């Protein structure tokens, strides 16, 4: 039932957008749909701060997702097998590491944001600042989304590790290796994010 409702809403919205777009195209006003105007008129500060926001928020969502997935399994499995409780906190630590990557990247990105004089600036200065804004946004997406899926992945594997450990203690170390590989993908996101933001700078000098 709700499928029909959401399908109906999306269909209506999409139809209206298509209608507006076709109207503009057919009435010779196609030039009004100006993506270039949008990019040059929006402030690079918006992009940069969106990037910082995405970094920290998506990383935290990923870490939280992983922690609740693993945590509830540890609590359940720990009832009949209390020995798993301490060892499996390692899985929680791997999930938490994802959030730490996010905050480190967010702080690194924050340091780059500097004020610049938009009206009086030379063309090169404006170019550099816009690039910094877009780079920070891109880096935010990179790091945020990588950490989101990394957190989810580590969580699901950690849940399996806890339940397997409860049945057979020798399985834990083997599944931990899978978890280590899972947490590396978050690190990949951080590395790419660092490279994206390493060469940009904002400010009046450029």
């Amino acid at each position, binding site marked *: 039932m709700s499928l029909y409702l959401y399908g109906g809403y999306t269909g209506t919205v999409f139809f209206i957008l298509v209608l507006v777009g076709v109207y503009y195209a057919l009435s010779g006003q196609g030039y009004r749909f100006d993506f270039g105007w949008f990019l040059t008129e929006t402030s690079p500060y918006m992009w940069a701060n969106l990037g910082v926001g995405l970094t920290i928020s998506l990383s935290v969502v990923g870490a939280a*997702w992983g922690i*609740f*997935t693993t*945590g*509830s*399994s*540890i*609590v*359940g*499995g*720990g*009832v*009949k*097998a209390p020995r798993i409780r301490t060892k499996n906190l390692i899985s929680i630590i791997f999930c938490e590491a994802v959030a730490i990557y996010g905050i480190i990247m967010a702080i690194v990105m924050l340091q780059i944001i500097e004020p610049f004089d938009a009206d009086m600036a030379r063309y090169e200065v404006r170019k550099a600042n816009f690039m910094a804004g877009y780079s920070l946004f891109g880096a935010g997406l990179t790091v945020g989304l990588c950490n989101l899926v990394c957190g*989810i992945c580590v969580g*699901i594997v950690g*849940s*399996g590790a*806890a*339940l397997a450990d*409860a*049945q057979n203690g020798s399985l834990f170390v083997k599944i931990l290796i899978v978890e280590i590989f899972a947490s590396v993908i978050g690190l990949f996101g951080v590395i790419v994010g660092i490279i994206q933001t390493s060469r940009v700078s904002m400010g009046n000098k450029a």
Partner: protein
Amino acid sequence: MAMQELYFNIDNGYLEGLVRGFKGGILRRTDYANLVQCETLEDLKLHLASTDYGNFLANEPSPLTVNVIDDKLKEKMVIEFQHMRNQSVEPLCTFMDFITYSYMIDNIVLLITGTLHQRPISELITKCHPLGSFEQMEAIHVAATPAELYNAILIDTPLAPFFVDCISEQDLDELNIEIIRNTLYKAYLEAFYEFCSQLGGTTSEFMCRALEFEADRRAFIITINSFGTELTKDDRSKLYPRCGKLHPDGLAALARADDYDQVRAVAEYYGEYKPLFEGAGNNPGDKTLEDKFFEHEVELNVNAFMQQFHFGVFYAYIKLKEQECRNIVWIAECVAQRHRTKIDNYIPIL
């Protein structure tokens, strides 16, 4: 629902961990090897104390009887199930309620039969399975006719929709009580199958397979048991649950069958059921068909634990615990009666 791994643990993570912990306490082959060595029921109690059961028989007065052991085994399973049911939320709680409906059907049929034979209600209530208890149980003896029973009492129980589908008010008066039981069970299985298919994902994958086997097994057993009775072929085919693999061709063939060999011929068409009929026989030393069905069921249910993030583990756990109770009671009976030739006929689980 796709990608169950992402959000299954929000509501059900703790309970899945808990039920897997309970499953780890199911008796293994070494435990059974110890149990069959016992000479008396006191020995049995001692050996059970070192398993997950612990001192569950500690407060029972000696001499122990097999009935007492059976009751206490069931009580432990019921306590575990009730704990999990109390913690669960939708849709797991509806799923667990569906599991209890089969016990409710057995209880209702027991109470109706007992009332027809003028047994006191208190005696009947003690014989009911605790998992299938419902609020109106005490009131069953008040109704004079089955029709009144339905209108006054059963209509408020969760089983009311199963009565509505198949039995009308007039039928309740005339039908044999076993036919009522089988018709109710058929409606229950089909409703459960529908519910599980709509849940989707791994749950429906496992549960539909388990319920298909249950439906087909009932079809075979009803057919075999009806040879030599007054049940007509039409009536018999109305009792077959339609949610199994045998539907529709196998069920039509079973409805026409006249003896055991024809039933076996129907089973030959189905890859899973052919080996079950092949090994079975009534000679001493052979496994009976019921045993083969139980073995196959245990195999199916153990596989539930191979996948994570689905509800099938709860259903499988109850079925495996039931089988364990049957095993221990079988061994206890053999020990109590000192008739040890068939003591190894239990079905090993893990």
